């Protein structure tokens, strides 16, 4: 029983990380049709800069971590918005070129990060409480899982509120469904592209800081690994569906944890099988729109 609880909550924590990356991927694809391979780079640069600021001000404390998170959010948002504005926008509607640009950016940025911070992981410090455990139903749960889950829930709630309550949220929801009709109502839908990138980038940036807490290090490859799973989550959840991304994040991460434990470390393999099954049985994903 305690093993199940541990796997479940760890899965939820990892799912929280996936969601922070996948939410932006899904919204960006849903609205603009852009597969953003640079999304992992937003996460990595935010993790590095968040860590650099946090450790200088107050290393290994809550205050330092809070500062890292804020820097991560801001860096993620700014870098993502700049990417949209300077690169993606110039290739409006040219989806293959857009994807290629983001691939190039991802490769180049990893090389850049390695040049600055080296190729090895840099171990980070975290507040003492996060390194301790809490006992739930006999399972000793590392406390950082709770932080991850709480942050992902807050981000999910924030994005949902933004989509439901604001004019831009309305434009984005409509644009995901039928972008050309939004322009035919006299709305410059491109302006909301930058906003979607900024929101997705901010979530990924926070994800970067939290990933460094979860893994205990920062590295130039932090974003690359998470991006792969986030893409899988996005496809399984249904491209363009935020709720789908949230549900799929949890499903994929929990499945991964259980398969790793009970099926001799086959978690990644099982996830890919799950992806294949979804693509065959329900190509639009769990909650995706009919293409």
């Amino acid at each position, binding site marked *: 029983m305690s093993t199940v609880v541990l796997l479940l909550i760890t899965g939820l924590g990892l799912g929280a990380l996936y969601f922070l990356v996948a939410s932006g991927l899904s919204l960006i694809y849903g609205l603009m049709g852009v597969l953003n391979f640079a999304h992992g780079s937003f996460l990595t640069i935010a993790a590095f800069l968040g860590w650099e600021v946090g450790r200088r001000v107050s290393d290994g404390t809550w205050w330092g971590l809070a500062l890292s998170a804020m820097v991560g959010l801001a860096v993620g948002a700014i870098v993502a918005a700049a990417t949209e504005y300077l690169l993606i926008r110039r290739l409006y509607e040219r989806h293959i070129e857009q994807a290629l640009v983001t691939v190039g950016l991802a490769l180049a940025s990893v090389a850049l990060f390695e040049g600055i911070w080296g190729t090895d992981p840099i171990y980070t410090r975290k507040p003492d409480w996060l390194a301790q455990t809490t006992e739930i139903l006999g399972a000793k749960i590392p406390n950082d899982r709770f932080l991850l889950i709480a942050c992902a829930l807050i981000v999910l709630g924030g994005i949902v509120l933004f989509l439901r309550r604001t004019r831009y949220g309305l434009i984005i929801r409509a644009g995901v469904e039928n972008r050309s009709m939004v*322009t035919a109502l006299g709305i410059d839908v491109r302006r909301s592209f930058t906003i979607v990138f900024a929101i997705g980038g901010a979530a990924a940036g926070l994800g970067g800081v939290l990933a460094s807490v979860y893994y205990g290090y920062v590295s130039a490859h932090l974003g690359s690994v998470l991006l792969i799973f986030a893409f899988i989550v996005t496809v399984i959840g249904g491209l363009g569906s935020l709720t789908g991304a949230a549900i799929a994040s949890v499903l994929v991460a929990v499945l991964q944890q259980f398969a790793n434990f009970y099926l001799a470390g086959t978690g990644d393999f099982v996830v890919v099988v799950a992806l294949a099954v979804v693509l065959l049985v329900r190509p639009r994903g769990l909650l995706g729109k009919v293409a």
Partner: protein
Amino acid sequence: MSEPILRVAGLHGRIGGQQVVEDVSFEVPATGVTALLGRNGVGKTSTIKSILGLIDRTGEVHLGDTRIDRMPTHRIVQQGVGYVPEDREVFGSLTVAENLRLAERDAAPRREFIQRLFPDIHDRRAQRAGTLSGGQQQMVSLARALVNENRLLLVDEPTKGLAPRIVDEVADALAEAARTVPILLVEQNLHVIRKLAERVVVLSGGRVVFTGTASDLLDDEDRIQRFLGVHDAADPHDSTAGSAR
């Protein structure tokens, strides 16, 4: 006649490399309803989409004195063009109220006017547009265009697939709108054309083949047969969309 509100000259339109509008020229007067007619697949929808910049196009299009053929779609619409697309294209996942709110461009949108014109959809403001009947969706689509003060409406087959009673309702709403704004109307139902249109433009194979008053066309059984491929139906509610195929 006063200055036309829309002047289209040498308009070409392409979809995926295929030419679907070929050298189309016509004018829309500043008042009343002008019907854009022709058999299925002649390029009526594509002509409307070319005017709006929704598909690749070349040629000259003037709205009043403003040249609009180089503008992106949203700028054209902001010049005062209301669009009711074929197949309605309401946002099914948004509520009726959200569909209307999204469409509001004016500082003082005409919400009371819409409420009076379409009381039925006003009562369904909180309902998702995707769960409405076809007729109700058409009302939402019309309301989105009528909520702003426009200089021109482009309305594409608003009665397609609707029950006779709803066809009348839609025609009444268009007649009401036409009192204040000129309309370019694509329509297959001859009864509706008779009731609303003053002038007609007929397309065939992506080109204009006839321009004139509505009675020039509609009083001539031979022309109706030749240009629209239909006989004027005895039943006033018989949509000709089916029989033209």
